[in-house]
């Protein structure tokens, strides 16, 4: 019933366009929309993908206009932030991998929780050195292109909730609140199947995304990239699930390496990063509308 209601909400999205602006959503759109009007119309394939994706399903021209506006705005942000995001990815990926791969609590946990985050921040601000652990993590290349279609297709309620939490984490003023939201986003990003196979990894993934969020939020220009964290988690989970299906053990070390790989891939690629953020913006708007609708009374009898 909940899934059916969610699908109906997607169908009504064009009708209800503009009815509600979720907290801060207007800020994000005004930051991007129209900023680089027309500049990226041919550069990002997403433009044509969106039109074909929704044709016949969403008749509203206004809805398509807003989608294009969002795509242009997000594309503009990613284009400006790309060099810095690449630098952040180089530093953050091994940090995330180290955090995920370390046992919870204890002296090691204390170091991971505090010092690595500070080291990463110093490395980013001073642009001084490549993080020394980077060589430990060999980036998987066997699934190149496997996530190309992930921005398309319907989204579950849990996935939409994850995107909503990530958008709040990107905008909130409080560091601790941002990490609480990203913890929720991480948990909600996992599908039912992934949760069953990765439940022992969840606390480690939460720590990894918390540290990543902390790093991304340090600089204003990279803060919107927090919206891409659910995509990183989802891609990590999919990779690990494939690993398990192939009969390979899903160890903490494998999870660490996979998450480091996906962090670097998503943040370093302007196209992938833009697609992830656009997915987040779309999902946030839909989830925001769902939260403002008066809930339907339960069916009696």
């Amino acid at each position: 019933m909940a899934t059916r209601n969610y699908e109906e909400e997607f169908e009504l999205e064009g009708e209800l366009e503009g009815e509600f602006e979720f907290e801060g959503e207007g800020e994000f759109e005004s930051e991007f929309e129209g900023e680089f009007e027309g500049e990226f119309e041919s550069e990002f394939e997403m433009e044509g993908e969106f039109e074909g994706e929704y044709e016949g399903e969403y008749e509203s021209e206004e809805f398509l206009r807003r989608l294009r506006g969002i795509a242009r705005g997000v594309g503009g942000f990613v284009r400006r932030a790309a060099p810095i995001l690449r630098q952040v990815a180089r530093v953050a990926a091994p940090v995330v991998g180290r955090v995920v791969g370390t046992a919870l609590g204890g002296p090691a946990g204390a170091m991971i929780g505090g010092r690595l985050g500070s080291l990463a921040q110093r490395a980013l601000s001073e642009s001084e050195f490549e993080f020394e652990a980077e060589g430990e993590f060999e980036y998987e290349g066997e699934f190149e292109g496997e996530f190309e279609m992930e921005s398309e297709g319907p989204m579950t309620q849990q996935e939409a909730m994850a995107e909503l939490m990530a958008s709040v984490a990107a905008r909130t003023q409080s560091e601790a609140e941002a990490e609480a939201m990203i913890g929720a986003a991480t948990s909600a990003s996992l599908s039912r199947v992934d949760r069953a196979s990765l439940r022992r990894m969840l606390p480690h993934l939460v720590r990894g995304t918390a540290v990543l969020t902390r790093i991304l939020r340090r600089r204003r220009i990279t803060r919107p990239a927090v919206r891409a964290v659910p995509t990183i988690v989802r891609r990590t989970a999919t990779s690990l699930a494939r690993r398990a299906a192939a009969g390979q053990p899903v160890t903490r070390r494998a999870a660490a390496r996979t998450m480091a790989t996906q962090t670097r891939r998503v943040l370093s690629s302007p196209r992938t990063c833009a697609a992830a953020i656009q997915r987040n913006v779309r999902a946030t708007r839909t989830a925001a509308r769902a939260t403002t609708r008066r809930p339907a009374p339960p069916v009696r009898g």
Partner: protein
Amino acid sequence: MSRAMLEYELESEMEGEWEGEWEGEWEGEWEGEWEGEYEAEEFFGRLASLARRAAQNPMLRRVGLAAARTALGGLGSLGSAVGRQLGGAQGADWGRRLGGAAGRYLTARLPQAEYEFEGEYEGEYEWEFEEELNPIRRVYPDALMEHLGHAATEAESEAEAEAFIGAMIPMAARLIPRAAPAIMRSAPQLIRGLAGVTRLLRRSPATRQLVRTLPQVVRRTAASLARQTAQGRPATPQTAVRTLARQTARVVGSPQQAVQAYRRSRALDQRHHQSVGPAAAAVRRGAVAM
């Protein structure tokens, strides 16, 4: 007045009343002993002796009420969202103030009599759980929630603790599907409220172990929201946060409820560790190979 100031005001209402008393109560007994499970056993062991005697603990009750007031801080964000819709940035500021005022209003309606709601819904609560999800399917998510609660208690930083706590909210929606729409609708407010409670409890070594009762608070909040939905009273973010505050006061403020929550937490956390045993062995093999 900023949201931070409103929350501080709510917290500081109770802080002066109980913080000094707590330290005086426990200081000589706990100092230097807050490490791992031993401290938890000691802490809840003393609560259990109170529970056996059906004794009340005014200080614990004040902690519960202070935590409940902190949970209501989540309403500030709701006010901000509504305010922004109405009047932009200035509207958001007014909305935050209104949300904080709503929090103070609701604070006055938290239970004033000792354990006013003790046992009120316990029988219904158990029935709700059994109906919602197959007990076998429920064990692992339950155990994982308790593990997250344990991790939040032991986390080295506030932010990390709150990340673990935040992860519980979507899990509660899966555990009790009937509550899922209400939880989805109120997730940011619930997470903010719960994060505030976590921050408050972790502030003092005397109350830090109570963070382990929060998974129980989350479950009971979800069950209550499911019950409200079934009764034709769909939960808004405001009512969801109120429900969270009430359950916080009930569980954290009662020796019986707190001890029960801790025992459940310990049992399920152990089950979680048992379930990841083969994975733990694989990790050890991996560590040797490194």
